[in-house]
């Protein structure tokens, strides 16, 4: 997302109150507008189509379907998307634009294959348990549509197509809303199916528009499909790091889905509504951390990082040392600033939430779980900023360990905290966030100490061949007496 930072630089550099507000608005719009448009569309459909009037089972079936589409599409596409993003950035840097199309094709195939491998058995089970086949097919298509949406968002982000992406989301979600009305009132579909079908069409439309936009930029095809597979192999740690982080974000939910007081729909879908809702609210309370990271932290850091990299490429040792010092100073100060800002915002939103939400029907249990999860997401999002810094320094091992700690402690902690008072349900997740935050913090400190080794001692100067060295004697009268001219 550094691209947004570059655009923001131009805005913030003017240094006036108006430009500052415009800058924050800019980053806010482009980072969470897509999400807001989906939520807005869902709320509009709920209201206009009369979702409240739908029976419990049908309503829960729809809610769980949408929840699963969101959670599992993020889980299955995030690992690949990180590598696809890196590949595309590298190829653009190398000006090998003809390699982007193969990347999109291979990326789409691997993404859809992996996603389908998880989704198809689940859908078959759901159909066997009595959910209509057309319904599950629509869920499946909606799931694939959202997976594609997420991956095509990556390609568009690299091309800095934020305005277009926002437009695609807003237009498609607007159309989704209209389609849901048509399906309900003209085709007489049920309320939930009208919403589901419209949403599926909406996701597929966003994916198609985003894909068409990217392909418009890259018209030639090198047919070099192996290269991206090679990237998957090289950057397996990046895949693992992203997957583990995303898994960690939802693994505590999975633990609560296994509790006796969970909700099971059609013997297929499992969820824990109070916990899931509290998680959603807590996540939303802290969502601005991402905006701050992009609009302030990354922007300032990126400049110092660039100076350091330029010094490495063509600078004296003295300049390298100075720029390194400045870069880490900015990293520390910006992390502290982020923590301060986000803390204030989280407190404000939390106070508003605990005042307003009970009045619009949020039950006591959700509100009991919500506070600690808010703390958990607060720490987690700060940790995520650290994780992004680790990626900056190409520390994929650190990123992977961070993700592993996050997931493992999230599961173990939640298994314990599920037995506590509801106020402490979020303790497991919060602890996991804190542990991985601490790990990433010390990892960054370690990088600060060892960054020279990280930068200058990577790679190889001699090609390494995993074979035994050929004999040094090319002529041996006792052996064959012949000259060995094989090149080895």
């Amino acid at each position, binding site marked *: 997302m550094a691209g947004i930072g570059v655009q923001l630089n131009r805005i913030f550099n003017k240094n006036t109150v108006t430009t500052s507000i415009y800058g924050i608005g800019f980053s806010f719009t482009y980072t969470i507008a897509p999400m807001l448009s989906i939520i807005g569309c869902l709320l509009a459909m709920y209201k206009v189509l009369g979702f409240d009037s739908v029976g419990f089972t049908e309503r829960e079936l729809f809610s769980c379907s949408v929840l699963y589409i969101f959670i599992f599409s993020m889980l299955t596409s995030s690992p690949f998307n990180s590598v696809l993003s890196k590949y595309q950035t590298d190829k653009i840097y190398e000006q090998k634009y003809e390699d982007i199309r193969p990347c999109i094709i291979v990326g789409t195939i691997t993404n859809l294959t992996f996603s389908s491998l998880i989704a198809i058995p689940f859908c078959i089970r759901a159909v066997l348990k009595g959910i209509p086949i057309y319904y599950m097919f629509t869920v499946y298509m909606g799931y694939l549509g959202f997976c594609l949406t997420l991956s095509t968002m990556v390609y568009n982000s690299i091309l800095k197509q934020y305005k277009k992406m926002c437009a695609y989301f807003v237009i498609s979600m607007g159309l989704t809303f209209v389609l849901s009305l048509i399906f309900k009132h003209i085709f007489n579909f049920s309320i939930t199916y009208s919403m589901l079908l419209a949403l599926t069409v909406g996701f597929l439309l966003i994916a198609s528009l985003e894909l068409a936009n990217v392909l418009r930029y890259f018209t030639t095809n090198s047919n070099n499909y192996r290269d991206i597979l090679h990237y998957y192999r090289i950057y397996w740690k990046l895949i693992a790091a992203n997957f583990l982080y995303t898994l960690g974000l939802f693994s505590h939910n999975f633990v609560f889905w296994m509790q006796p007081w969970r909700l099971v729909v059609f013997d297929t879908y499992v969820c824990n509504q109070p916990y899931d809702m509290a998680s959603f609210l807590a996540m939303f309370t802290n969502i601005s951390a991402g905006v701050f990271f992009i609009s302030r932290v990354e922007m300032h850091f990126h400049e110092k990082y660039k100076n350091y990299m330029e010094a490495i490429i063509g600078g004296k*040792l003295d300049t390298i040392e100075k720029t390194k010092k400045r870069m880490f100073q900015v990293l520390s100060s910006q992390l502290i600033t982020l923590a301060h800002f986000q803390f204030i915002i989280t407190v404000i939103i939390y106070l508003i939430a605990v005042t307003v939400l009970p009045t619009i029907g949020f039950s006591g249990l959700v509100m009991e779980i919500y506070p600690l999860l808010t703390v958990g997401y607060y720490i987690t999002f700060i940790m995520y900023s650290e994780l992004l810094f680790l990626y900056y320094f190409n520390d994929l091992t650190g990123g992977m360990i961070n993700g592993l700690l996050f997931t493992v402690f999230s599961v173990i902690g939640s298994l314990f905290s599920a037995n506590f008072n509801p106020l402490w349900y979020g303790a497991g997740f919060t602890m996991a966030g804190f542990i991985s935050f601490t790990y990433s913090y010390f990892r960054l400190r370690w990088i600060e100490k060892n960054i020279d080794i990280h930068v200058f001692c990577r790679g190889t100067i001699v090609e390494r*061949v995993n*074979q035994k060295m050929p004999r040094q*004697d090319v002529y041996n009268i006792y052996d064959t007496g012949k000259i060995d001219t094989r090149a080895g």
Partner: protein
Amino acid sequence: MKICIIAEGCYPYVIGGVSGWVHNMINLFPDIEFYLVTIVADRSFRGKFTYKLPKNLTKVFEIYLQDVEWTGNSKAKKNRVNLSKRETLALRSLIIGEDVDWVTVFRMFNRQDISVNNLLMSPQFLEITKEFYNMKYVDITFSDFLWTLRSIYLPLFLVLKAVPPKADIYHSVSTGYAGIVGCKALSLYPDARLLISEHGIYTREREEEIIKAKWVQNIYKNIWIEQFRKLSKGAYYFADLVTSLFEEARSLQIDLGCPISKTVITPNGIDAEAFKNIPVKDPDDPYINIGAIIRVTPIKDVKTMINAFYFAYKKQPRLKLWIMGPLDENPEYVEECFELVRMLKADNIVFTGKIHTQDYIGKMDFMILTSISEGQPLSILEGFAAKKPCITTNVGNCYGLIYGENDNFGDAGIVVPVMNISEISEAILKLANNPDLVKKMGENGYKRLMYRYRNEHMEETYRRIYKTLAHMSNVEFPEEKSVS
């Protein structure tokens, strides 16, 4: 008894003075078994020998200055290198160049788990590089400096990683990488002895090459030169004896750090008998033939020779220049020489390519050598064996060969300054117009050769040296004397 000769970039791949000398040496001692360790640029040279190997040369081992790292069955697969404090200090001494702790360096490279790549990419190497950079090079781009330093040490580390075969005496034909391989052998087989025979002075030759080289940026030239100085100093330190061809070379060795007590002068020798009954000049041959037995390479400065000949030819049209020697070592330079000949329309210049010296040398009137650098050229001695005087540039021991060192035989040619076309041209005309002088000088040269530069002299000297070294390492020396 086994003697392991260590050569760099010459025998048995390239025809030339040093290669010929090595070949001759092995043939001179048929009762001794020889191994050869030969250092070449890369694996493309593997086994491509130009010489027919003598029977007593039983094994040839190759070491490459550019190679891959073979990690199969190795403990060095991981990207880490563990160095003890002492090894780190030794590495520092090697790079920074203050009293190199060679013993630890050799021991470090004798470890099974040491990897050239890991060592060059290690944090220790980086830290030492930083220290070195801060000492003298603070104004240049650091990453360039680091990678240049790595590329400087890569060939040396590959050489240090190589394992020479076990022998009783190691005889390096130069200092530099060959000298270091000899030293490393001593670290593996402490009972063995090391003899170094320098033809040219390795450090000086590399220095001249690097100063002229276009592939090295000026700022890095000093580092390369220092690198070769270090290698030579190390080799001198570990060698039991260091030979040179003439007094001036010996003085240079001492200047470069060789202990005076180790130095010995061992002049070159050739088989004078082989030049008896060779074909002579046809009395009806109208030309005045000038012979140059040289490889056509820049160090022989063939272009100056052609130009000088051309000016002499303008005044004496009977002159004919025979450039006799391989044309395949530097095709680009050869083409430039051909182009020069075409441009000057110098019809009386013949490039014969590789020849059998005895078939041609008797037909010449006198010889010529315009090298920029030489040791004690065998081609001058071969001319003397055929009673041909030589016009030669004042390099190496040429002055001593032509005018004599502590003998009264008289001049055996004319010594001229390097790259001085007019003086070379005048010398050609002087000899071309004085056949009696040429004859007299030829006789003088022959007498000088017979007095000091015959194979028998060289064999006797080296037999004595080998014998002494064999006794020092408690090995029986084969007493039977036989000459090939």
